[in-house]
Structures are given as structure tokens and as C-alpha cells.
């Protein structure tokens, strides 16, 4: 039989998340060992804090910082201000998760004995990667 395996992606690797956000065009992404406070558009300290932070100057002219904070299970949760949710909405978050999955898979593939035959992207943005064993 051919395998059928589905995997629900949960963002757990800070390094892969940082690479994903940089790929998405943010000029700088901070990665901290411990949670650091987010800053608002008036340079005010917000109540929220996060290990991964995109400072407001890289988000938009009147934006607040965007953060990703680890939850109790070790997975990252996005912290986006209400103002910024108009642009950085659910669809954007899905793009982050998809980009993260792509980066993790690329690294997993690099560790193993497979070569990429083809990579395509469907109209609905599904990324397809077909692989062949090298030996």
C-alpha cells in the first residue's frame, strides 16, 4: 500500500519561524531566549511579551510590534494588535504556518537520502514536492 500520513503543523522551532518571517520580507526579526515586552506605535510598552519579535518599524508606519510567544506546550502563538490584524490576519498567519512547514521539511529532506524531482505550487497555494530516493 502507499502511505497516507497527515501532519498538523505546530510551530515549535524558533529558528525556523525566524527564517520564515525573514523570507516573508520583514527586514529584521528578533529572537530572544526569554520573553521580551512588545512596544506600541507611540513607543509605549504593551502588556504582551514574546520570544520572537518583529519591531513596529518593520511592520508598518503606524503599527505595533508583532510577537510570537511560546505557550505552555512549547508552541508559538502569534500576538498581533487589533490595529494590525487588518493586514496581518488569519490568511497571513496561515502563510506563516505554511512557510514554516516548508522550511522544516526542506531541512528534514537535506538530512535524508532523497532528491527533489519536482516542486510546484497549485492555484490554491498548495506546495507539492515529489521526491526520489537517491540510492
Amino acid at each position, binding site marked *: *500500500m*502507499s502511505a497516507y500520513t497527515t501532519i*498538523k503543523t505546530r510551530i515549535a522551532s524558533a529558528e525556523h519561524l525566524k527564517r520564515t518571517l525573514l523570507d516573508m520580507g520583514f527586514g529584521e526579526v528578533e529572537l530572544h531566549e526569554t520573553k521580551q515586552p512588545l512596544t506600541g506605535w507611540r513607543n509605549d510598552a504593551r502588556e504582551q511579551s514574546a520570544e520572537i519579535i518583529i519591531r513596529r518599524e518593520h511592520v508598518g508606519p503606524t503599527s505595533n510590534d508583532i510577537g510570537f510567544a511560546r505557550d505552555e506546550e512549547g508552541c508559538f502563538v502569534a500576538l498581533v494588535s487589533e490595529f494590525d490584524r487588518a493586514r496581518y490576519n488569519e490568511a497571513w498567519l496561515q502563510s506563516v504556518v505554511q*512557510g514554516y512547514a516548508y522550511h522544516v521539511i526542506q531541512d528534514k529532506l537535506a538530512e535524508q537520502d532523497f532528491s527533489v524531482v519536482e516542486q510546484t505550487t497549485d492555484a490554491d497555494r498548495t506546495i507539492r514536492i*515529489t521526491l526520489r530516493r537517491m540510492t
Partner: protein
Amino acid sequence: MSAASQLEIRLHAFVPLSRANGPGPRSVLWLQGCTLACPECFNPETHDRDGGRSATVDAVVSRIRALEPQLEGVTVSGGEPIQQAEALGELCRRIRATTSLSILVFSGYTLQAIERTASGPDVLAHIDVLVAGRYLHETRLGSGLLGSSNQTAHLLTDRYTREEVASTPEIEIQIGPSGDVLVTGMSGGAGLIDYSL
């Protein structure tokens, strides 16, 4: 409406398009239910015959026909497809009669064993390729559509050459728009699908 068109088939999953389950782009059905219990089976969650969901053969054929312009063929995996041989035979007959799609079926039974079942010959009469034999983990192969080296790809029509069947990519990874991942193909047990995303 004929009784045959209302036959139900138990499905585990349907993937509209895959390139790692036989030659060219194919829709793939994983049928639900298998009593063979091969150790280290790729798809243990397909074994429970009460799992998955039921669909009429009619509905499955309609869905495949709508996808036909994008497809080269249809692949049926499992679960154990031959344990639903009556519905599978009708499904294959209808696909054969109403489309130009090729049909490839995976089974844990040998060709000879399928020929001895009541509805097995009806399935064999309407398919192009049968990949047959139990999965034996100790002889794991995972390429050329063969899970283990004891399995055989039987070319039942002249639609494909052995090389075309063997050149199927081993794995396809689909990363959906929301980041959920689907891994299909002959990769089970290779460790590649043991992601922690």
C-alpha cells in the same frame, strides 16, 4: 437507478491529485478496512472496517470524472481494496466505461489469491496494474511502487511498461495553504514522515 450504482464503498481518504502513486497525475483512494495486519503497515489507521466513511460508487465516480482533465489515472490503496471487491469491481468498471483514465490497485493478496475470490476477477478485468503481495517489513523496499521486495507489479494491460510503473517518484509532500502537511507514496517506515513540525 440501478442497485449497482448505489453500492457503497468504505473510504479512508481521497486525494484529488498525487504524483507519487503511479504513473502521472492521479487521484488516489485509500479504502478503509483490512484484516491482514501486516507488521509495520504504513497505514494502521485504515484497518478498522468501521472507521472512515461510506460513499456510493456513484458519488466517487462523479468526483473522479470531474477531475479527469487533470488526471492520467486513478489509484486505489488501503486498507485492503480486495476486501471490498464487489464495490471496487463496480467502481473500476464504471471508471473504465466512462473515462479514459488508467487504474492501478494495491493489494496485500497475491494475483492468484485474488483470482480465487468471488469478485476479484471482476476487479482484475477492469484495471491496468495490480501491485500485489503482503507488506513484509524485513524485506522493505519502498520504491518502484513496491513496499517490500516480495511484492509484484502485474501489468494487466499494455497501457504501461514496467519502467513507467517503476519510475513513479517515491514520495510526494503536499503543504496546504494553512500549513497542514500530507505525505503519500512508498515512504512509510523510511523515517521521512516522522516529522515533528
